[in-house]
């Protein structure tokens, strides 16, 4: 048997093992894992929540009870409400999703799976319709300014700015200093800086415009397709759009908390008969997580040698 055939057989076995488990239970486990990875970080919520989550992962009976999800949702939403003006949006999405899991588990068992799928579909749709709406009403987004600024001044986009935009690491470091300088200049300079010119690269403009319109297209499509009910072709298109979104976005922009939530919602809403699409979410999660969180760290730890360059390239 060739190694390709062996890999395919192994992949099918893994898919069967993972996907014969109840969809609802898989979603429960993924939802608990996201809290460990990206949940609230204040000690008074993180400590009890982590203990609860670990118990829930180990004890299946516990995670299928409504009271368990009520307690989890209460912790997450209480944290979100207390820190409301500063908490990231993906933590709000986590809170609403935990609330949805509580409400789903209050339902009769016969409708729990359907209720979970609908919650996932509608939340996915609302999030992306809202995100697209904000972009369409913001002129500095539509003209490419936003992504150009992010490429030049946000460390998260540094790799894209260097490898595709043609900017230099030194120029981008200076840009981040300039961003701080202009904010602190009022107390450090006799004549405060009124403006600062950012270092750019030959293709940054074009890259920014491409990212701008690609994002509107994919987010808008995903939003509309998700709010459109249906389990046939619409479900396939919707699930595919979610996969394309996560694969293309989170390789460039490591906002992993939100990425996890899109994967959970995308997986949750996907009808069970589309096994390969469902498996796709789990694969995308694994690939993105390994690539963004570990390979880059390994490359940085090794410094500026040839291996680092190779790791950075891939």
């Amino acid at each position, binding site marked *: 048997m060739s190694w390709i055939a062996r890999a395919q057989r192994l992949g099918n076995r893994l898919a069967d093992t993972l996907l014969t488990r109840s969809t609802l239970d898989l979603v429960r486990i993924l939802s608990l894992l996201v809290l460990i990875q990206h949940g609230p970080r204040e000690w008074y919520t993180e400590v009890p929540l982590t203990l609860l989550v670990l118990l829930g992962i180990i004890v299946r009976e516990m995670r299928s009870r409504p009271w368990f999800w009520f307690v989890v949702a209460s912790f997450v939403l209480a944290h979100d409400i207390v*820190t*409301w*003006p*500063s908490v*990231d*949006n993906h933590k*709000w*999405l986590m809170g*609403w999703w935990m*609330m*949805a899991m509580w*409400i*789903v588990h209050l*339902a009769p068992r016969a*409708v729990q799976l*359907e*209720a979970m799928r*609908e*919650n996932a579909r*509608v*939340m996915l749709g*609302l*999030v992306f319709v*809202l*995100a697209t709406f*904000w*972009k369409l009403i*913001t002129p*500095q*987004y539509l003209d490419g*300014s*936003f992504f*150009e*600024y*992010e490429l*030049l*001044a946000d460390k998260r986009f540094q790799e894209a700015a260097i490898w595709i935009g043609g900017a230099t690491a030194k*120029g981008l470091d200076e840009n981040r200093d*300039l*961003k701080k300088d*202009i*904010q*602190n200049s*009022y*107390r*450090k*300079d*006799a004549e405060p*800086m*009124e*403006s*600062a*010119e*950012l*270092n*750019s690269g030959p293709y940054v*403009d074009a890259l*920014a415009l491409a990212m701008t319109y690609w*994002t509107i297209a994919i987010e808008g499509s995903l939003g509309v397709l998700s709010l459109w009910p249906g389990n046939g072709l619409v479900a396939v298109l919707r699930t595919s759009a979610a996969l394309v979104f996560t694969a293309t976005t989170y390789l460039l*922009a490591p906002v992993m908390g939100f990425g996890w939530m899109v994967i959970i919602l995308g997986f949750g809403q996907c009808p069970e008969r589309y096994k390969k699409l469902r498996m796709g979410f789990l694969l995308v999660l694994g690939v993105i997580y390994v690539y963004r969180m570990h390979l880059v760290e390994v490359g940085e730890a090794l410094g500026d040698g040839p291996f680092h360059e190779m790791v950075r390239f891939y």
Partner: protein
Amino acid sequence: MPDSDASQPREVRSKSDSVDVRIYKYLAPGALLALALLQLFLGRFHDLTPWKGGGFGMFSTVDGPSSRSIRVYLETPDGEIATRLPDWIRNREKYAVSFPARFRLQSIADEVARSHWHYIRGDGWAEDGVRVDPGAEAKGPEEKAEEAEEKPGKRPDREGPAPYPRVSSRRPEAEPRDDRVPIVVKAVRLEVWRNLYDRKTDLITQEKIAEVRAEAPPA
């Protein structure tokens, strides 16, 4: 008490069942939408940054929390001193920049005005708030413009003493330090600024979005 479901006719039972199922499916998304609409309103009309507040406006605008900052000015009999928020107020700063509501800024300004401020040595200033070397002037605007032409994108290195004396503060409830020269603060002004970006010129500029003033209590 009789079971209300069993006593209902079959078609009415189905209708109440379908209402229940809709609650299970749409209550949580409904709550998400309600908060998002509130955030949209506050973002458009009350300077809440679109990046926060549960409305999913992140990655649509330059106006995120890291692009906003607070400037602090102490009004003294000898003039204004520009400084920054005391370390012990920093945890409230992130809320204030994300949503610069007047009540929040005023509360911070009042606490800063009640604090005990004093001079510290450094950056060309002595412990009593007097410039160490009056002859060492910072570069003039023409010199800075020349250097900017030679190093585009990088601002000129600062020379000479900082324009304001270095200051430090203690909380209002703490005892003032006997070993430091106190500053007589008449009032405190806080300003919230945000970055703007023009892609045609690659320039970052700033825009003020909120300002409050708090009088210091009488000595």
